[in-house]
């Protein structure tokens, strides 16, 4: 899940000044998370195309909106044909694609995977500068701050340990954005008990043996559409973690940082409200 890029501090500094003064007319994005930022902050006519997963409602928070724009494959070919003024991409993964694009004169702005709410706000500001709408970025960041303040007001005491379990036993790392969200609402990410800083796959028995107080899952009643997903239907998980011990937050809210953060924080606050009753 944390495949969509990583670190961007250096790239951010490099681009701020030159990018701000004249906003590019046509901007494309080939990363699901930069798709979200572009959709939230750019004018519709500025968006030249979005990555392959932007329309997937399972993962993409703004999937409905994304349907109005061309769908890119995420590979170099159609992006070169599209020839946008700027392409937003993740900093990690698809290195060959990014190199190829740069060789063909497509300007690329790389974005890291945000590790905290502050990182997200920095990225929001950066995209606001790029598209020439810093006021929209400020408004979004204000709403993120407001949601974080609401969450802190009703926060738990930080002793409830939560493990975020996805398909095939992927566990969100203690050093990731989800940890930052959990901390904001007063929950501890149990991944730190496992020493998983940037996440990793664990077996079901590790999940059970770690004994987190709650597990965080993406769906309340998952369907075994493949073997990876079938793991979440294992009777052992059902037995130890009945619905009362689960926090259900759709993946679209936790996969990226951006316009979905206020909703993600509100959902988390609601969920602990229910769990503590």
């Amino acid at each position, binding site marked *: 899940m944390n495949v969509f890029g990583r670190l961007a501090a250096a790239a951010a500094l490099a681009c701020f000044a030159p990018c701000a003064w004249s906003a590019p007319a046509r901007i494309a994005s080939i990363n699901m998370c930069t798709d979200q930022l572009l959709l939230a902050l750019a004018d519709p006519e500025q968006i030249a195309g979005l990555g392959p*997963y932007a329309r*997937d409602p399972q*993962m993409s928070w703004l999937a409905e909106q994304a349907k109005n724009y061309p769908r890119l494959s995420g590979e170099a070919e159609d992006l070169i044909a599209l020839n946008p003024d700027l392409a937003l991409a993740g900093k990690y993964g698809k290195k060959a694609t990014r190199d190829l694009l740069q060789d063909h004169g497509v300007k690329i702005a790389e974005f890291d995977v945000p590790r905290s709410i502050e990182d997200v706000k920095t990225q929001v500001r950066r995209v606001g500068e790029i598209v020439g709408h810093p006021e929209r970025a400020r408004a979004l960041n204000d709403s993120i701050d407001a949601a974080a303040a609401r969450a802190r007001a009703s926060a738990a005491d930080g002793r409830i340990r939560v493990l975020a379990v996805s*398909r*095939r*036993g992927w566990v969100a790392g203690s050093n990731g954005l989800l940890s930052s969200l959990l901390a904001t609402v007063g929950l501890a990410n149990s991944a730190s008990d496992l020493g998983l800083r940037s996440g*990793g*796959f*664990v*077996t*079901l*028995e*590790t999940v*059970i*043996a770690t*004994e987190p107080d709650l597990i965080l899952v993406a769906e309340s009643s998952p*369907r*075994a*559409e*493949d*073997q*990876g*997903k*079938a*793991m979440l*239907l*294992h*009777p*052992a998980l059902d*037995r*130890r973690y009945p619905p009362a011990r689960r926090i259900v937050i759709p993946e679209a809210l936790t996969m990226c940082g951006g316009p979905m953060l206020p909703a993600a924080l509100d959902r988390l606050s609601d969920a602990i409200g229910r769990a503590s009753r």
Partner: protein
Amino acid sequence: MSATTGAPPATDRAGLGRALISPALAGLVAVLTLASLSVGAAKLPVSAVVDALFGAGSEAHRVIVQDIRLPRTLLAATIGAMHGLSGAALQGLLRNPLAAPSLFGAPQAAAFGAVLAIATGLGDALSFALPLSAILMAFLSACILVAIVGRESNLLLLILAGLALSSLAGAATALALNLASNPFAALEISFWLLGSLDDRSFRHVLLAWPFMACGAWLLWARRDAFRVLSLGEEAAQSLGVNVTALRLQVILGVALGVGASVAVSGTIGFIGLVAPHLMRPLVGHDPGRLLAPSALAGAALLLAADIAVRLIPSSSSIKVGVMTALIGVPFFLYLVFRERLRLGGATA
């Protein structure tokens, strides 16, 4: 056949040894079963495992042992046994030491069947559509192979046709997952092509066991026919064995057993090749007598491989099919080396 009259003492000793092989193997399987229940990501002492198995101990321990490790162990033992039995039966049917389900492409075809069932929306990963579709594909691939190889069971033809079928089925599996636009296709492909018993549950046991039991019974019921068949097809025919019916029954048995296994574990190769070969020097060349020891050896091999993948430290879980191939492929090469004269004769 081997129960000759007036046997010298040496044969008696061999007969006694043969009689002891199955109990000894059963003991080994029991020990490996216990070991398999005791090994895992959560470090539990053996006493805690035994407590949890019989319903004592903390709930977390009970869940780990009863709901996670027990189904995995039962599947490893029975799937291994099914592969061993299938290998021995196929080698008996074709009177050919290189016959094995995985060289036939049967598991790969079964994996394609299972993936197809999911991709076409016939059922999800926990439905009966999966084993049924896997069995059908395994049956088709085995029929195609037997049709190509024909009655002579030429070694070279067998290996080439099997290679072609398994490559085709593997590619089709990957393609089906890609076309189903599963964003996690790469991980799913590795499961189906390399096999894994990670985090199986009793639902998987329930999916596989009924079909595996039918398959095992179909093969076991014909053990005497294999014995007669080792005299040659004409001789068997004249002794009242309907060879065509025997072929069909063996293919059906292998397809049922291997297809159902693959539907819950993915492709696990080479157990069916190795197990009968390990047993043949111990029980002699009677293919009827080879079935039970081969099944037990298969169970022991897969249990051991599945224990090994959990013991080797790695950041992500090692697929059990990787382990069986690492053991099986050198063994296969050794067999090819040993048979090289016959193979060379076939090309001349």
